């Protein structure tokens, strides 16, 4: 025996490489092959599904619109600390004037107004009415005075050469930025060459402000602006609407100037970011927590009715001989396989005031012909229709758990003296609990995100949070809020699925038996 020698040398594979290395290589190849098979689908799901979900999550906090629409104002506001009483300094008004003129020309101001309206009502109409008056602001005197001081200032071609020079742009930051915005707008919106177009007053206003602060441009004619006649932009904004002289308006703009916002999420939980930090919304605007609560309460009700209706049925099927159980199983699977809209339309037809159920009740004499029951367009309608739709999801897991409980346990309990109820309650029921748990979580998860059925039979009192999400996407166009509500719903569902996974295992979801 040469144990010592063998131990010091590595074991070799047939081709002479060490066995360990060879095995590792084979394992790596196997892993790579598996991944290569999975990769196309993974990529497909990432693009078609995961990216959209990520996009939605991102949109719930995304807020670049303010920065993109009024960049100069945002920059000028960086050092302004709102205290709720003082108005911002003149340069902020000047920057805002430049931004607003450009935004109005680019037709972007109403979009920003709607965005800020989500945070403070009145913003939308403020932006709209200001947009109508902004072109009539009396700022032409700067242009006139500059042209009088030096005729070159009235020449667009000169401006184009000046602004092409880096030193000028550096020396006159406000002017450069205003000119750049204006030139872009002329090219994009008017489809013209900025070197041939009469300059907008915003450029001269910015130029005046630059010169007034002592700037000297290397290759532009120097003009002494100390004797210039001036106009107050603050007063002109105030003349359009007094809101511009209200510090709160500016505080709102400053608060929501950042690239990210928690505003949508706060809105989704009925709060807002006021001047003194986060606070609850006024009573009349609190709708989402109530709606979320209603969604949860209705989902719990639906889950409970599903347990009540599903338990006896599953029990019967689990205890019947296979042949009859299979027949009954078809009665459960047929609704499961029937189109959701077929079932919803069936209920809509059955439950309406002139529908079959009310007709039947009148015929029996339970209700009078004139006071037919309101069974639809309310929470009752949602509960009935959704219970019917989700019942199979309760019966199937219950059945598969009950099938594994040996009937001999019940017989044993009875032979030891338990009566029927005790035997069921103390012996059978505890063993069926996993089925109830699995079915309940499944039904609850499905119900909490339901959209179609509540939309069609829920009226106003029986709608869910999902209906509100759809409303914000297609009607109110508050996409950020829709995304925030969706993210909250997603988190709830994922937590529940995590619980479900611990309890049952996601791979074990039974698909139709």
């Amino acid at each position, binding site marked *: 025996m040469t144990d010592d020698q063998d131990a010091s040398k590595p074991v070799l594979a047939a081709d002479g490489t060490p066995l360990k290395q060879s095995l590792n290589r084979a394992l790596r190849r196997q892993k790579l092959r598996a991944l290569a098979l999975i990769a196309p689908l993974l990529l497909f799901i990432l693009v078609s599904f995961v990216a959209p979900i990520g996009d939605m999550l991102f949109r719930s906090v995304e807020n670049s619109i303010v920065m993109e629409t009024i960049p100069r104002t945002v920059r000028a506001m960086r050092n302004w600390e709102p205290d709720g009483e003082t108005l911002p300094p003149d340069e902020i008004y000047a920057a805002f004037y430049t931004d607003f003129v450009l935004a109005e020309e680019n037709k972007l101001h109403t979009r920003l107004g709607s965005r800020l309206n989500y945070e403070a009502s009145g913003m939308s109409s403020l932006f709209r009415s200001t947009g109508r008056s902004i072109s009539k602001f009396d700022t032409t005197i700067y242009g006139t005075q500059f042209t009088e001081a030096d005729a070159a200032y009235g020449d667009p071609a000169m401006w184009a050469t000046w602004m092409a020079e880096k030193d000028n742009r550096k020396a006159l930051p406000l002017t450069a930025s205003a000119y750049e915005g204006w030139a872009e707008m002329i090219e994009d919106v008017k489809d013209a060459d900025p070197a041939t177009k009469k300059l907008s007053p915003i450029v001269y206003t910015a130029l005046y402000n630059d010169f007034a602060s002592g700037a000297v441009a290397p290759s532009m004619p120097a003009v002494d602006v100390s004797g210039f006649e001036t106009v107050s932009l603050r007063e002109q904004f105030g003349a359009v609407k007094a809101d511009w002289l209200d510090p709160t308006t500016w505080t709102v703009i400053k608060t929501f100037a950042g690239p990210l916002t928690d505003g949508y999420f706060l809105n989704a939980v009925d709060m807002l970011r006021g001047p003194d930090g986060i606070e609850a919304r006024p009573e009349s605007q609190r709708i989402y927590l109530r709606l979320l609560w209603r969604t949860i309460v209705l989902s719990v009700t639906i889950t409970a009715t599903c347990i009540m209706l599903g338990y006896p049925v599953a029990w019967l099927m689990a205890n019947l001989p296979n042949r009859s159980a299979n027949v009954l199983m078809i009665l459960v699977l047929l609704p499961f396989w029937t189109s959701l809209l077929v079932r919803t339309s*069936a209920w809509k037809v059955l439950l309406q005031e002139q529908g079959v159920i009310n007709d039947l009740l009148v015929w029996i004499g339970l209700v009078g012909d004139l006071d037919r029951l309101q069974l639809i367009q309310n929470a009752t309608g949602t509960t009935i229709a959704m219970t019917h739709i989700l019942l199979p999801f309760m019966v199937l897991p219950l059945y598969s758990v009950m099938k594994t409980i040996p009937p001999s346990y019940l017989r044993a309990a009875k032979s030891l003296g338990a009566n029927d109820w005790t035997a069921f309650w103390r012996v059978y029921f505890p063993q069926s609990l996993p089925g109830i748990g699995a079915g309940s979580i499944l039904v609850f998860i499905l119900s909490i*995100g339901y959209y179609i059925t509540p939309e069609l039979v829920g009226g106003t009192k029986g709608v869910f949070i999902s209906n509100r999400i759809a409303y914000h996407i297609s009607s109110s166009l508050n996409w950020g809020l829709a995304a925030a509500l969706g993210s909250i719903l997603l988190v709830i569902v994922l937590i529940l699925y995590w619980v479900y996974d611990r309890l049952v295992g996601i791979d074990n979801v039974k698909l139709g038996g």
Partner: protein
Amino acid sequence: MSSLPPYASPVQRAWFYSFRVICGLIFFFLIAPIIVIIPLSFNAEDFFTFTPEMLALNPEGFSLKHYKDFFNSSDWQLAMKNSLQIAPVATIISVTLGTIAAIGLSQTHVPFRRSIMAILISPMIVPLIISATGMYFFYSNPYIPIPFYGKLEIPITLTGTYVGVVLAHAALGIPFVIITVTATLVGFDRSLTQAAASMGASPVRSFFKVQMPLILPGVISGALFAFITSFDEVVVVLFVGSANQKTLPWQMFIGLREQVSPTILAVATILVFLSVLLLATLELLRRRSERLRGMSPG
């Protein structure tokens, strides 16, 4: 308590029968709404309830006019055409990619198996309204996120296009294919492919000649699930599609929301028969695979 023992007390006897009655009522609740719409769809009037003529089984109370409406309406015909064009293509994509990936997932050594599985199953878990919201945003303006740079926008719009709807539906159908096919692969005897390989078959050949025929029932039932998912789906179509891509469920949804026309009942009846057909196919497949599993050793 599948049958009543001869020594049962009167109380037990009463409970036994009343329990059966209760279960009967629950089954009635499950089935009746679906059954009721079938006769209602033959109503000669534009009512949603049984007319006296119908109750008297008078032939004049019945007619095929709602079916005629369905086949003559350009809206419904477009919807049906779209449904029949979108669902099969989405199914083919889900089944092809899904089956290949399921085979990859069933190998012995798969790194990150749990995480990959979680991602692939996620379209089934996330509520449709959330998927629809995300897809509506992303498909209208797709981009590639690049860290520290921002968005690289892709200048195409998928919302309101056939491709967008198919893509979305294929994603929704994939979890079903993955689940059914991996479940079938668990029972697949790996030594069969090894035997094929030892006799000189290439991996591709042994896949098509040995593995595929054996896992075919799983693939077909996955395909049926994917098909019905797409065929039945309405939320995502409503958001991602436009009126040109309207499918049968879309048309039904719009019809039910605005004004209910009895044509919907005719459509519903047709769809009920379709689901009966699907259910029967699945049941046959299940029996077949059970039989096969019974025959295979181990």
